[in-house]
């Protein structure tokens, strides 16, 4: 894929900071969440991803889906199938909760992860950056500084949610961190936005409240491509600025 320069790098992520502090609770009668804290933390996110990986490698009958958010993992299941296959002694929820506890313990053994930096071209010029000038003014920075700061950080993709392939990345340098808009506006596909300490890319045109600072020519969601969604939780991303001419010739 053009513009998709991939640089391999190895980083060791320590998850030793974790203790047994988590909470498992029902998200209705067909889903359960294990929540490790109401925080945005790379270590907890890595832990949630390791648990997801373990569960996908050790699925159980009736497990329908699982997803990682910042510091939590949610598993969707069919209680009727679990009841039929495993005859849980107590509730189906308790049975799945046990399974999650097991995932938590087993996934501790994953201590290393090889991460890639995915470089994504972004045009920060008009008309792709409707909120860039106001953001720069609000932060009392020249526009070029905002762009330099936004492109100088390697972001962690914590989760995919909201829309097919919408990436929640962090953390944005506080010098350019701004709250989301009061009123959502129509946002074009490829738009790169900032909301608080998060940054992300709208893969589809959609109403949205993030402050839009640029747009990537890359198609991050392609329903009929071999991989419909390009970015996944756990990826590392760095943006680089391109001109409008470069954008148009993509």
């Amino acid at each position: 894929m053009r513009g998709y320069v991939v640089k391999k790098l190895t980083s060791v992520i320590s998850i030793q900071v974790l203790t047994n502090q988590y909470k498992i609770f029902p998200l209705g009668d067909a889903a359960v969440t294990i929540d490790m804290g109401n925080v945005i933390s790379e270590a907890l996110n890595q832990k949630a991803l390791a648990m997801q990986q373990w569960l996908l490698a050790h699925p159980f009958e009736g497990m329908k889906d699982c997803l990682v958010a910042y510091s939590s993992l949610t598993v969707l299941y069919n209680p009727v199938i679990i009841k039929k296959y495993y005859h849980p002694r107590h509730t189906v929820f308790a049975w799945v909760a046990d399974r999650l506890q097991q995932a938590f313990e087993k996934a501790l053994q994953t201590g290393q992860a090889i991460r890639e930096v995915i470089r994504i071209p972004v045009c920060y010029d008009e008309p792709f950056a409707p909120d860039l000038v106001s953001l720069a003014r609000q932060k009392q920075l020249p526009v070029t500084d905002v762009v330099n700061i936004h492109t100088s950080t390697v972001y962690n993709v914590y989760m995919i949610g909201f829309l097919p392939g919408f990436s929640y990345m962090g953390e944005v340098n506080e010098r350019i961190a701004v709250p989301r808009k009061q009123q959502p506006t129509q946002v074009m596909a490829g738009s790169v936005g900032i909301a608080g300490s998060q940054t992300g890319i709208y893969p589809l045109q959609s109403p949205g409240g993030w402050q839009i600072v640029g747009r990537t020519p890359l198609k991050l969601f392609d329903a009929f491509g071999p991989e419909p969604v390009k970015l996944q939780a756990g990826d590392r991303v760095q943006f680089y600025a391109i001109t409008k001419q470069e954008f148009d010739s993509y």
Partner: protein
Amino acid sequence: MSLTIIKPGLLDTIQDLGRTGYSRLGINTGGVMDRYAAQVANMLVGNDTLEAVMEIHFPGAQFLFEQNTLISITGADFTAMVNDEPVPLWHPIVVRKNAVLHFPKLQHGSRCYVAVHGGYCVNKWLNSYSTHLKAGAGGFHGRKLEKRDEIPFKESRIYFAGLLKPGKEFEVLKWHVDTGSTYLHPNEIYIIKGNEWDQLTCQSQQDMLEDNFTIHPFSDRMGYQLKGVDLKRNERTELVSSGVSFGTIQLLPNGQLIVLMADHQTTGGYPRIGHVISAHLPKLAQLRPSDCIHFKITDIATAENLLIAQQQELNILQRACLERLNHVVC
């Protein structure tokens, strides 16, 4: 084998029981709003419950059947008519080639399901027939049905012509499905407590269970906005986003509630006050704007037992439907 849309409806889409396994990519489950009615629609025509059905909102589309076929209509009552004669819901019905099905008047309910024998022949997207409108994929070209769309059916080796009386455009077969307790007490919705239930003030916990909530007109397949007394939390902490599910009841910053429905996003960051139990989602899916909801708390064990009982009832119905059908077509 196919049907053609003569006149499009407000929102008619091809759906199945949902697309699972992709929520970590932000691709939601979607699927039918009323899983009970959709499954029964398939059973009545001898299909597997995983086949695609058509989900119809009022005002519904007008269809022309291009061949003799066996159909069923379940869920909401929009006064279904074949060639201007009323036909009953929850029955198998044989329709003759060139018969026209339409829905002139809303009686009650919100979503009506039409299944055809063999199932609709549309492409799966990510293992599901469900229409994903945002992604423009799944179902019939990833969109709602429009005028002149021709929806093909899967091949069938059974011909139903012998069941049609001469001069009649349709024949209602003699058996029907009794929906039992599924839609009884439509406004009484059981919930289990959500993780942030305890953050509600005592007064708000009481209000939640004693007051009535009205479904706002802005409600759709993504979620039902509710109008009711403002609910308050004891704490102001914001939540980082995490997974949500069909039936999750979130508290918005303005003190009002929203219930997430079939097309909900995969993640959310509002406090989760409660979750509608799965067995009550079909009746919730059939409520309409300005209908009232009264919440009752139950526990997870009861919720699971009610769902399992509902599924057992469906299994019995499926066997019975197949036996009846085999008997008449043999």
